[in-house]
């Protein structure tokens, strides 16, 4: 107990100490300067936003406050008057989607409709749908190309749009460390954009390239903003969080068809309630030879493909 060496208080202050003091001060100043961009960043953030609870923990009152705040933020940051609602899953509904590969011509109108409906970042031409031009006679994605830029359809090709498959065993949900993404009772896999920490593990886990990250703050002119928004779907996402296809839940939970289906000029898309035996989607499953992508992964997608012939 008494062999301690060099007790601090017993030393005299020297020039060396003064220099050290100056050095330390300079260091702290440099550190503050280096981190200055953080100050600018926090100007767009509010304490309420920072402290906001997880979606599932919000009481109806909390939620109303959050929605009002988000509308206000959209007005401040984007200059648009929007309405942000929260639509809940309907009982007795589980959504399914099917796509007729014989009919799709690869015009990418669906991707464009998604871009507009879901208030995607304009400069990056973001969309939840990626359309692949595939070689006829092969389902090998390696022969696919999403960057085709010639009139479609080409004779020896078929076209395969890919979006979120809303799997029954979604790996993206299992891997999320903070439960920021989950599967809703109607089968839709959603993200709480105000809870996601942006680690992108879900993006690595998804085998369908269905998830997108907001690499920057989305840019979108006020007049192009779709004002009918909902918390879990198409409200303008914050920077640095994941987003994904929600089957347009702000539309589909109100009984409407998703935007990509309405935009499809050829009627290649079929959407409906898998639990309703009379629904169109059930008829596809009953009448057509249906397949899912990467079935061997065992993820049980709710997005089906079929050929007419």
């Amino acid at each position, binding site marked *: 107990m008494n062999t301690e060496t060099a007790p601090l208080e017993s030393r005299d202050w020297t020039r060396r100490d003064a220099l050290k003091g100056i050095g330390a001060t300079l260091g702290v100043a440099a550190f503050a300067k280096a981190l200055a961009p953080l100050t600018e960043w926090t100007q767009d953030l509010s304490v309420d936003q920072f402290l906001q609870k997880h979606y599932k923990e919000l009481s109806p009152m909390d939620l109303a406050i959050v929605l009002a705040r988000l509308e206000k933020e959209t007005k401040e940051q984007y200059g648009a008057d929007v309405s942000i609602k929260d639509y809940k899953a309907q009982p007795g509904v589980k959504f399914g989607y099917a796509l007729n590969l014989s009919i799709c011509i690869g015009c990418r109108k669906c*991707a*464009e409709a998604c871009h507009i409906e879901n208030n995607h970042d304009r400069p990056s031409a973001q969309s939840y749908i990626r359309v692949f031009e595939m070689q006829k006679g092969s389902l090998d994605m390696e022969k696919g190309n999403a960057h085709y830029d*010639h009139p479609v359809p080409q004779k020896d090709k078929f076209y395969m749009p890919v979006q979120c498959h809303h799997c029954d*065993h979604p790996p993206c949900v299992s891997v999320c460390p903070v439960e920021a993404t989950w599967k809703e*009772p109607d089968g839709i896999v959603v993200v709480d954009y105000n809870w996601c920490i942006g680690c992108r593990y879900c993006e690595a886990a998804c085998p369908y390239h269905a998830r997108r990250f907001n690499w920057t703050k989305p840019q979108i002119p006020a007049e192009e903003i779709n004002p009918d928004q909902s918390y879990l779907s198409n409200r303008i996402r914050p920077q640095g969080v994941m987003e994904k296809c929600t089957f347009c839940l702000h539309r589909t939970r109100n009984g*409407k*068809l998703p935007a990509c289906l309405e935009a499809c*000029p050829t009627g290649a898309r079929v959407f409906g309630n898998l639990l309703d035996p009379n629904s169109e989607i059930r008829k596809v499953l009953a009448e057509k030879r249906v397949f899912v992508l990467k079935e061997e992964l065992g993820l049980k997608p709710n997005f089906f493909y079929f050929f*007419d012939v």
Partner: protein
Amino acid sequence: MIAITTRKIAFVVSCLCFAAVLLAGVRDHVAAPSDAPSQTIISNAPLHPVIIRPGPETPRILTTQTNYAGEIARASCSSCHTTTTPNRNTASSAQLLKFHQGMTYAHGNQSCLNCHNETDYDSLRLANGSSLPYADVMKLCGQCHGPQLRDYEMGLHGGMNGYWDRTRGPRTRNNCVDCHDPHNPAYPVVQPVLPPKDRIAVPRKSEHGSVKLCEKTAASICNVLSSLHPTLFA
């Protein structure tokens, strides 16, 4: 000391076993809500209608004359066709010396009169010889295109708009001829929209290995957007 370590090891091992069991149940746990679907609710609410977009009106040809109101007079098909003799062998406008010039015809090896009614040119003709108003053209198409008609009736063919849930709202469906030109029914070749970008402003190798820049300009996007038609069948 040894006793403590043994107990600790036992604890760690049991923790790991517990975790393994939990993990084994991960997938089923995650999927629980969808694997056990709640009861199917078959609603007895009245269904909103499915509106099929109307077929074409009976065609009228623009003439060079004007009527009493000063409008361009329009003539029915039968105005001319009652004065000519029908020719069963005509299979394309290319075979005609005048009239119907420049019309693209690519709909199999058929005679005009397979579909047009030689006894009443203001209506169509079914295979059994009976007359059919233009507005009911789907019936005519369905004679040959059975699988498409079957799919259409199941809601699996043709574009639509409105509500998937008809207890909540109506649905509008396309007519055959909204998408298919009866004389040239193959869906037209179009230029695709909204080319995807892999990243913002990052050089991307093109298919041929050269490097091109994915331009960041918002202008290109604006062009795409302004060229958008709000209509369904743009």
